[in-house]
């Protein structure tokens, strides 16, 4: 298939030599060009939604550190939900809920995959564009609508959804259970339904593109690990997102049409409701059937970016290329059969819990292999410590720290007492939140020149951004484990109702201070990004001396990516510092061999 498509594309190579006439609307708004769509995702998903999501977390962290205190910033931002500047308990839950939703879905799913899959898949596999530019455009605009609907719920009378980002019924199903379960929850469900449609269109496009549009010589085992990660992520998305859609649809039916899929035997506000025979546990199964793979939808692209960035900057091939692919596939497979570890004490059969403990701890194995391979990639390298490289190293660090506590939470026995405490919050923020964000940052610093026609971000601001973020991330989430092990439940508006938690207020203050500083550090990034977008210095065509195909395209963006024929691929993406028998680099004076360079005389292709 790939060969015929290739021939077809070459026929049309000339068509792409000239630029189509483009208006402002077709170039910047309804663009079908993958590079522009990637930038649209980056700016809407990561920068805009990310700003809101992080700002929300700072607000509720302030409430946790100084419970009941009056802040003028609360009054300014929350208005009637912060009478006298004191945050209301309902809006606290709403902030927690929307923070989770935005960060997990909008920033780290759409923002991360949307940006880098769109940018890198065509460029790194040697394709003119995505398989369907039109669907790609539709996917972005559905995402945009979904953002608008989600954010509009912040402005309604009763407030946005407030049942936690997992929106377990009956709390989310009954408007009388909390104010956020009225119109706010309806908007949440509508936004997510649109989001899922967008995500599916995007994922299908990625899959088809990777399978069909690889350039000549680009076999699956020569693909950069970024592409492997995006490809497998898209597959997990296609498998699991529809299940969340069904959960959302059934919940809408329960809410609006009186069905009883998730509800039974309910007495609330003085009356018995008619619901009979449903089960909230069913909802939990459906939600986590997506919810757990979702963790890997967030994490795998970040790991893929890290593989590429780390290998390039270490000037070494990624260690264990095939083992990396195998572990990506193993993680993807296992991720679909571990969802029950979120439900050990949900009331489901304990035997089922045993099975999920088993599969969950298995997933630690491919994860460990990946971590060890990253460490070995650094060994005896010639590390170019660019900001992107530092974020990649930081990712491996938080991935290990956060991943290890998964051994506690994945064990059904140990989960009993730390379930739903701050221990969980610390665990998943480190392993998927911070790690995936580091992946985003690594990707932005590394591919910024590719996105903005050769302009580069300021490295010194990048260093400031990295070091403050790295210290603060541990400063927030490391002590948080202790709060969890002291038994403090998550999603508590304040802990003052329990004297046994009094002495932990100090820890909350420490975490909040670190969080506020970390938030400020992100402004450094934002400023750097915006400044460099307009005034960044143009760097060399291949600034990081990388092997992958995207650096063979001209700096200025053209429709179709390459002005002439698409380059052919002759080797894998990781021939860094490869030497011949005489100990010299294969290409004299150059420590890298781009993928489009044919095998040299006497050179053996690695049997990686």
């Amino acid at each position, binding site marked *: 298939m790939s060969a015929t498509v290739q021939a077809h594309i070459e026929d049309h190579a000339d068509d792409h030599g000239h630029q189509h006439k483009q208006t402002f609307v077709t170039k910047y708004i309804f663009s079908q060009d993958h590079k522009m769509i990637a930038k649209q995702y980056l700016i809407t998903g990561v920068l805009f939604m990310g700003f809101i999501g992080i700002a929300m977390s700072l607000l509720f962290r302030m409430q946790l550190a100084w419970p009941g205190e009056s802040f003028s910033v609360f009054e300014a931002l929350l208005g009637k939900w912060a009478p006298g500047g004191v945050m209301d308990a309902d809006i606290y839950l709403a902030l927690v809920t929307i923070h989770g939703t935005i960060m997990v879905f909008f920033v780290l799913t759409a923002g991360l995959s949307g940006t880098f899959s769109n940018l890198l898949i065509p460029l790194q596999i040697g394709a003119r564009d995505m398989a369907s530019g039109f669907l790609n455009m539709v996917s972005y605009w559905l995402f945009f609508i979904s953002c608008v609907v989600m954010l509009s719920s912040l402005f309604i009378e009763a407030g946005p959804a407030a049942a936690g980002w997992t929106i377990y019924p009956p709390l989310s199903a009954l408007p009388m259970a909390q104010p956020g379960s009225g119109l706010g929850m309806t908007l949440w469900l509508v936004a997510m339904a649109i989001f899922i449609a967008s995500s599916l269109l995007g994922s299908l496009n990625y899959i088809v593109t990777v399978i069909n549009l690889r350039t000549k010589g680009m076999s699956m085992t020569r693909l950069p690990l970024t592409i492997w990660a995006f490809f497998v992520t898209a597959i997990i998305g296609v498998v699991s997102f529809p299940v969340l859609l069904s959960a959302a649809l059934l919940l809408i039916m329960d809410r609006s049409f009186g069905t009883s899929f998730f509800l039974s035997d309910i007495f609330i506000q003085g009356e018995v409701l008619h619901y009979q025979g449903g089960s909230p546990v069913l909802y939990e199964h459906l939600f986590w059937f997506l919810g757990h793979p979702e963790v890997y939808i967030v994490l795998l692209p970040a790991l893929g970016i890290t593989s590429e960035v780390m290998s390039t900057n270490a000037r070494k091939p990624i260690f264990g290329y095939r083992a990396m692919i195998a572990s990506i596939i193993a993680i993807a497979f296992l991720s679909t059969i571990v969802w029950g570890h979120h439900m050990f004490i949900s009331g489901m059969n304990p035997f089922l819990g045993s099975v999920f403990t088993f599969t969950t701890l298995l997933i630690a194995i491919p994860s460990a292999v990946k971590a060890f391979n990253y460490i070995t990639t650094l060994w005896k390298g*010639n590390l170019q410590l660019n900001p992107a490289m530092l974020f990649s190293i930081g990712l491996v660090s938080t991935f290990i720290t956060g991943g290890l506590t998964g051994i506690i939470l994945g064990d059904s026995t140990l989960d009993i007492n730390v379930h739903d405490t701050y221990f969980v919050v610390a665990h998943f923020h480190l392993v998927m939140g911070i790690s995936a964000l580091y992946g985003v940052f690594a990707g932005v610093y590394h591919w910024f020149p590719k996105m903005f026609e050769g302009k580069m971000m300021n490295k010194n601001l990048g260093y400031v951004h990295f070091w403050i973020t790295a210290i603060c991330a541990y400063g927030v989430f490391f002590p948080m484990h202790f709060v969890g092990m002291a038994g403090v439940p998550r999603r508590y508006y304040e802990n003052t109702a329990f004297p046994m938690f009094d002495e932990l207020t100090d820890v909350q203050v420490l975490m909040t201070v670190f969080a506020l500083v970390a938030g400020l550090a992100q402004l450094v990034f934002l400023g750097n990004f915006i400044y460099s977008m307009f005034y960044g210095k143009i760097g060399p065509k291949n600034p990081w001396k990388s092997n992958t195909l995207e650096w063979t395209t001209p700096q200025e963006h053209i429709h179709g990516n390459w002005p002439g024929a698409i380059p052919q691929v002759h080797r894998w993406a990781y021939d860094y510092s490869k030497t011949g028998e005489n100990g010299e680099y294969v290409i004299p004076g150059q420590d890298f061999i781009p993928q489009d360079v044919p095998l040299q005389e006497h050179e053996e292709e690695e049997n990686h």
Partner: protein
Amino acid sequence: MTTFLILAVLVLVAIAIWQMTKIFELSQIKAVNSQIANDADNKYNGYLLFVFLIFIYGITIFSFAKYGKMLLPVAASEHGGEYDQLMVVSFAIIFFVQTITQALLHYFGYKYRGEEGKKALFYADNDKLEFIWTIIPVIVLAGLILWGLYTWTNIMDINDEDDPIVVELYAQQFNWTARYAGADNVLGDANVRMIDIDKANILGVDESDNYANDDIIVKELHLPVGRKVNFKMRSQDVLHSAYMPHFRAQMNCVPGMITQFSFTPTITTADMRNKPEIIEKVKRTNAIRAEKAAAGVENSDPWEFDYILLCNKICGKSHYNMQMKIIVEEEEDYNKWLAEQQTFAQSMASVQ
């Protein structure tokens, strides 16, 4: 005050780093002004990676030294001992791996920082190494899985051996109620459809069920030490979770179904209050509370240690204050207390 100090220090550190990078930038005017890391960048960031390793160890030691004593006290239930043991072993493994891998990661980052003209080693794979670091986690995890599952099966095996007391924990927005099965040790049937607010039958207990007559409904949980308790959980509105951290016990309360958990309390409230770690904790806490009381903060009376039941599943506005006191006492005290309580039949009769 300390907060602002920390804040000020952090801001100053940030400014210092910024200024340093600026000076550094200015001192390099001769070099090509490029945004790609050069040898000096590699050098400084390599050193910083090493410092960061020390920071990670430092924050670990700091947290243990400062917050280690704030963790939950010794388990007050029979299975809690096994739970704590498994937790300690898991943590030992985690810290061992964490210490080594972070050291390697950051040390390599420091040691192999780039220099112009240095050659990296072309080292693409090694099956033996891959095998080693696949098989070691397999063995360690297999051990943890087996131990964990053995303990899990024991904890979750809820049966009627050893003459357990049967207690229902009933959750609603935003409080707990307990129902003892009474002399016959069988709970009467109940359903939300039988709730009768006028007669104060808030749990919806079936008046026509004979087992229900001797049931005892209370707002404070008393448990005899050394006697197994089988809990049956119900919820009338949304999901709640009955979390009893001192007993290493937790189970969700799900509308429409009855969930269960079982444990045997081993330490009475009085004994727990006399444990040195608890005496210390109460002292620390009351010092904080005295400070608050002096500042005129409400709800800051001195505290006495008690076991507690918390709601640990988001359930609405007052989720953060849904609690019930648990008192573990000698069996005779327990029996005396129980005898003083009204039975369901008595309370129904008193209404009519």
